[in-house]
C-alpha cells in the first residue's frame, strides 16, 4: 500500500507552504523518521520527516512550489505499486524503470493534474466552486460542513456558517489524519476534500530588456512573509483609527542601571540586558493598569488580557516577524532579556511556530539603534496599540544641564482608546522608566 505524505498545516491561519528543499528524490529509499523535505510557511521554516519506510514513488511538488496545506506532496511505498490514486494519472505506474528521478517538467505536469480522481467512486463531495475556494482560503474542513444547498451541495453560506461557529480544521485533525491515514483505506477524508485544488506555481524570476541597459530589471515575486505583512499592514491602516503620541523620558536612570549591570556582569551573570529589555520590562509592568491598551479589538468586542503578552518586532531577512513574549508581566528583567533574545534568534533563523507569533496583547518595536528620533509605528491587528522605541538624544534641562532623552512613540487605535488615557499610559511609562530602579523594587 503506497502512502501519501501531505503538507502539514502549521497553525490555524496557514493556508499553504512553500517547499524549500527536497532531501530525497524519486527512487530513493527512505526510513521512518528520516528527513524528507524542508518547507516554510509565511512565517517559519520546518523540516518534515518521513512517517513510514519505503521508496519514494512520486514527488508531486517541486522546490519553490506553493502547496496548499494537506495536499499530497509525495508518495512512499514499494517499488512497482500503483500510485495513480495519488497522482490522478492511471498511466503513471511506479515500475522498476520508473524509479528514477523524474524530470522537473514531468513532475510539474503531475503536480498540476487535477486530482479529483483521488476520490473513490460513489464518494462524492458536493460543493460549489465558490464554497470550495472559500473553504480552502479559510481553512474550513469542507468534509465536516453541513450542506444546505440543493442536492445536499455545500454552498457558500455553509462555509460562512462554519467560520462563524469557529470550526476550522485544526492541527489535531491533521494529526489524527496522519496517524490513521497510513493504515488503510479508511483514510483521508481531509485530503479528499482539499486535494481538489490545482496547485499554484510560482513564476520564475525574469529579466526584461527594454532597449537600454537602464531598462534592465528583475521581477521578484512577493514572498509569503511579505504577503502576510502586506495584508496585515493594509488591514491595520484601513480598518483602524490610528494616531501616534510622541514623548521622551530622561534616560539617566536606565543608562546608569545598565552601566552598573555591565560593570558587574562577571559577578551577576546579567551582562546581556539591553535598554530595550528594560523598556519591555517597564511596559509589562505599566500595561496592566491600562486594560484597553493591553487588548485586542475584534469587531465590537474587546479582549482584555489578564497578562501582558508583548509582541517583539524583529527585523529578519524574511521580513518583519513578531514573536510574542507570553506573560511578560510575570517575568523578571533577566527572564525578559533571555526570552526576547531567544525569540529574536529563532525569528531570524525562521524557527518560530505560527502560534508563537499570535496571541499578543501589545507590541514593542525598536528603531532606536538606527538613530530614529520619532516615528509612527503601525499597529499589529487586532491589537489596540504599539510602542515605538527611539534613539537617545541629548537635551537641556531648565537649569541648563544636559541629559540623555530617549524617545517613545505610541500609536493607538482611537476606536479603542481616547487620547487622554493613551497619553496617561505613555506618561506613566516615562515616569516608570525614569525611576527604573524603584520600579524594579515593586
Amino acid at each position: 500500500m503506497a502512502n501519501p505524505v501531505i503538507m502539514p498545516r502549521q497553525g490555524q491561519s496557514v493556508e499553504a507552504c512553500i517547499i524549500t528543499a527536497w532531501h530525497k528524490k524519486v527512487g530513493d529509499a527512505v526510513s521512518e523518521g528520516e528527513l524528507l523535505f524542508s518547507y516554510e510557511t509565511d512565517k517559519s521554516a520546518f523540516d518534515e520527516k518521513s512517517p513510514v519506510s519505503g521508496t519514494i514513488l512520486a514527488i508531486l511538488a517541486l522546490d519553490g512550489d506553493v502547496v496548499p496545506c494537506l495536499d499530497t506532496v509525495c508518495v512512499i511505498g514499494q517499488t512497482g505499486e500503483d500510485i495513480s490514486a495519488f497522482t490522478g494519472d492511471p498511466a503513471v505506474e511506479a515500475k522498476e524503470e520508473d524509479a528514477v528521478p523524474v524530470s522537473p517538467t514531468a513532475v510539474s505536469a503531475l503536480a498540476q493534474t487535477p486530482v479529483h480522481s483521488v476520490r473513490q467512486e460513489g464518494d462524492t463531495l458536493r460543493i460549489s466552486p465558490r464554497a470550495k475556494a472559500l473553504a480552502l482560503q479559510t481553512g474550513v474542513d469542507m468534509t465536516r460542513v453541513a450542506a444546505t444547498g440543493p442536492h445536499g451541495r455545500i454552498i457558500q453560506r455553509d462555509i460562512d456558517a462554519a467560520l462563524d461557529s469557529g470550526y476550522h480544521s485544526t492541527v489535531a485533525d491533521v494529526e489524527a489524519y496522519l496517524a490513521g491515514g497510513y493504515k488503510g483505506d479508511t483514510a483521508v477524508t481531509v485530503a479528499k476534500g482539499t486535494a481538489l485544488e490545482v496547485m499554484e506555481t510560482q513564476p520564475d524570476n525574469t529579466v526584461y530588456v527594454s532597449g537600454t541597459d537602464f531598462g534592465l530589471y528583475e521581477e521578484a515575486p512577493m514572498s509569503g512573509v511579505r504577503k502576510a505583512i502586506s495584508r496585515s499592514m493594509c488591514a491595520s491602516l484601513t480598518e483602524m483609527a490610528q494616531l501616534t503620541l510622541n514623548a521622551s523620558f530622561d534616560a539617566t536612570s536606565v543608562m546608569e542601571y545598565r552601566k552598573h549591570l555591565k560593570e558587574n556582569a562577571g559577578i551577576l551573570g546579567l551582562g546581556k540586558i539591553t535598554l530595550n529589555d528594560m523598556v519591555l520590562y517597564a511596559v509589562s509592568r505599566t500595561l496592566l493598569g491600562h486594560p484597553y491598551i493591553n487588548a485586542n479589538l475584534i469587531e465590537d468586542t474587546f479582549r482584555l488580557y489578564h497578562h501582558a503578552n508583548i509582541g517583539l518586532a524583529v527585523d529578519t531577512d524574511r521580513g518583519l516577524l513578531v514573536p510574542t513574549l507570553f506573560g511578560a508581566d510575570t517575568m523578571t528583567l533577566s527572564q525578559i532579556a533571555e526570552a526576547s533574545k531567544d525569540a529574536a534568534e529563532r525569528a531570524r533563523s525562521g524557527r518560530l511556530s505560527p502560534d508563537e507569533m499570535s496571541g499578543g496583547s501589545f507590541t514593542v518595536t525598536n528603531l532606536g539603534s538606527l538613530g530614529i528620533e520619532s516615528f509612527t509605528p503601525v499597529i499589529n491587528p487586532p491589537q489596540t496599540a504599539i510602542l515605538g522605541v527611539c534613539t537617545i538624544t541629548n537635551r537641556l534641562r531648565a537649569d541648563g544641564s544636559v541629559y540623555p532623552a530617549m524617545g517613545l512613540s505610541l500609536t493607538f487605535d482611537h476606536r479603542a482608546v481616547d487620547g487622554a488615557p493613551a497619553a496617561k499610559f505613555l506618561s506613566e511609562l516615562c515616569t516608570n522608566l525614569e525611576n527604573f530602579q524603584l520600579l524594579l523594587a515593586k
Partner: protein
Amino acid sequence: MPKNQYISPSDAFASGSLTFDKIPLCQYKKTLAQEKKLYTKADFMRIYRDMRIIREFETMLNDIKTKSAYNGVEYNNPGPAHLSIGQEASAVGQAYCLDINDFTFGSHRSHGEILAKGLSSIEKLTETELYDIMQEFLGGNILRVVEGKQEKQGDVKELAVDFLLYGALAEIFARTTGFNKGLGGSMHAFFIPFGIFPNNAIVGGAAPVALGAALYKRSNHKKGIVIANSGDGALGRGPVLEALNMASMDQIRKLWGMDGKYEDGGMPILFNVFNNFYGMGGQTRGETMGFDIAARLGAGFSPDMLHAEKVNGYDPLAVIDATQRKKELLLKGEGPAMLEVATYRVSGHSPSDSSTYRSEEEIEEWKAACPIAAYRKKLVEGGIATEEEFDAIEADIVKRITKICRMSIDEEISPRMDLDSQPDIISSIMFSNQSVPSMDPDREAEVLIPKEENPRVKQLAGKARYAFDEKGDMLPKIKQFGLRDGIFEAILDKFYEDPTLIAYGEDNRDWGGAFAVYRGLTEAIPYHRFFNSPISEAAIVGSAVGYAMAGGRAIVELMYADFIGCAGDEIFNQLSKWQSMSAGILKMPVVVRVSVGSKYGAQHSQDWTALTAHIPGLKVCFPATPYDAKGLMCAALNGTDPVIFFESQRIYDIGEQFHEGGVPVGSYEIPFGEPDVKRVGTDVTILTIGAVLYRGLAAAQKLQEQYGISAEVIDARSIVPFNYEKVLESVKKTGRIIIVGDACDRNSVMRDMASNIAEMAFDYLDAPPVVFGSRNWITPAYEFEKYFFPQADGIIDVISQKILPIPGHVSTVNESEL
C-alpha cells in the same frame, strides 16, 4: 387600406367574365437582312465571342471537376460547379441590352450570366472608366495579378476581359484574389461595379432581393432596371411568387408619389426565367409544375399580365430583341415584366449528375441544336464572317482561358485566406460595424410635412418622459411617454435625416402598425417611402436585403415574431450572410422589427430570439424600456448591420422608470452588446431578456422584503453581440445567477448564456447558472399563461429550489429538473 379607395358591394358582386390577352410564344422572325441593319459585324462577332468564352469557361470547369485537368493544367476543385453549357445565347442576349445601371441577380447556375454581363459592361464603359474600376476594386488586388500578362499591351478592354475571367474563377476557387476574396464562391459570385449583383445558392432566393433593388431605384428615382434571373424550378418557390405579387401591387402606380411630383410608374423589374425545363432533375413541364408554359404565370399577377412572353433562348438575337422591348417598358414605368427564355443545359445539374431523368436522345438533339454552332453557321452562310475568323477567335479564347486557369490555381499569385496566421479574418467581417447616419447625405429627404407639425410629435410633447413625478410617485400610464413612443421618435428622426430610409410591412400605413408604433408616420412620409406590403414576409425581408445591397436603408416589420418562419430564408440566409459573403463589400443597414405577443395563443406569443441569435451575421436586441428602445433603435438606424429588433407587446405602453431625466428628445445611441444593471444587489443576480425584466424586478423586491435577500437585476438589452463583462462582474460578487426570459427554455438564448457564464465564472459560482424560461409547450390560452411564462413568484421558487434554498419559503411552482 386608403379611405379614398372605396369598395362597394355592387363592384364586388359585378357579373361578367375575366379575359386574358394572348401571351406571345417565340415570335421572333427577323431575317438576317433585317438583323444586319441592327448589328455591325463587330456586334455580331462580339456576341459570338462572348458565347464562346462562356462555353470555354464552363467546359474548363467541367474538365477540372471530372478529369482534374483542363488543357494540361491540373487542379482539383472540391467546390460546386453548376454549369450552364447550352444556355450561353440566353445569357449573352440578355446582357447585350444592359449597362452598369442595370442590375442583374442570378441563381446557383449563373457563371454565364456574370461573364455575359461583365463582357457587355466592358464593351460599354470607356477605357478610363474601366481602368478606374479595376484599380479601385479591393485596392487593385485583382488588377495587379492580371495586369501585364496580355499579349497586346495597353489594351484596357483586353485587360478587363482577363480581369473579369480571373476575378470570377479565383472566386470559384476560393482565392483571396477572387471578386469576394473567395468568400462567395461559385454560387454567389458577383461584381457590383458592373451592375452584377449577387447570385444565390437558394433556388429563387434572388427574386425578392432583386425586387428590393428595384424598390431602391423606384423610391430613390435612380436610373436603370433590375433583372431577377431564375430558372424554371424557382417558380415553385413561395418567395418568388411573393416577389412577383409584391412587385405588381396596385399602389405603386395608383398611390405612390407626392401630389404628382414623384410619379415614376411601376416597379422597374424584369422577372426573367431561364427555362431549361428541369429543376435539378425534376421536370417542371409535365412533372413538378402545372403551368405548361412558364410565361403563363404572368397572367396571374396583374391585368397587364406582366407583359409576359416566351422567347427562343437558343437564338441570341431573339433574346436581345425581347429583352430590349421589356427594358423599354420598364423604363416607361410599365413594370414589372416577365420573360420566359426557353433554353437547355446539356451539361448535368452538376458534374456528378448522371442524367437518370432524361434520355440520351434528348440530350443529343439539344447538342445538335447548339446555339453557338447554329449562330456561327448562320453568320458564315450569311457571309458576315469566315470559318477562319471564327477559328481564330476560338483559338484565342482557349489560350486565354488556359492562362486564366493557370493563374487562378497559382498559390503564389492567387493565395487562399490564411486562417492559421489570421484566425479572426472571417470573424472580423461578420459585421461592418460602421456608423453612417445617412446613406445619401447629399439628397434631401422627401417628406410631406415639417417634423414639428407632426400630430404625434405634438402629442408626445405633452407626455412625461420619466415615469415618476418629483415626489417619486408613478404617473398615470396615459401621461407617460411609452416604449412605442421611443421607437417612433428614433424612426421619425431618421426619416428626415436619411433620404433613402424606407419602412414597410403589414398594416404600417393608415393603421400605424398593429401596435401603433407608426402612428403619425402616414401624415409625414410619402407612400414610396412608407407603405403597406402584401402579407408576404419572405418578400418583405428579402426586398429589404436587396434595397440595402443597392445602397439604401430599410426598416421592415413582421408584426409578430411568430412570422419569422415565413421569412426564414430571407432572414437566415440572405439578410445575415451577404456582408460576409461579399468580403465586406456590401453593407446591410436593415432593421427587422418583430413583436413578441402574449394572450393570442400558440402561434402569436413566441419569443424567437434564439432562432435569430443562432445565425451568424445578425445583430439581435430586445429592449424593455423606452430609453433603451429609442437608444438601440437610433444605434440600429445609424449602423450598417442587419438588426433583428425584438419588441414586446406586453410593454409598448410602459414608461421610463430607470433613466433619470427621462427619455431624451434628441437622438442618442445605446451601444449594441451592453447589458444594463437595473437594480443593484449582492446575493443573487437575475439576468432578464426582454419584457420579463419587470417580473425580475418584482421578484427582487419580494426577495428583499420577505427574505432579506438582495438581488441584482441585469437587463440583457442586446443578445448579439453580448458583452459578458457586467454579468461576470455581478456573478463574481453574488456567486449566483438565474437567467429569465419568455422564450421556451430548450435551446434558448438563456441556455447559451448560462453555459458561457458557467465557463467564464466557474470558480466564483455557488450554484450552477440556472435558466428559467417558458415551458417547452405550446403557449396556452391567456388564462393559463401563468403556468407557461415565468412569473415573479416562480423566479423566487426556482432560486429557492436550485440555487439558494430559502428557509420558510413555500414554492408555488415545482421547477423540476430536466
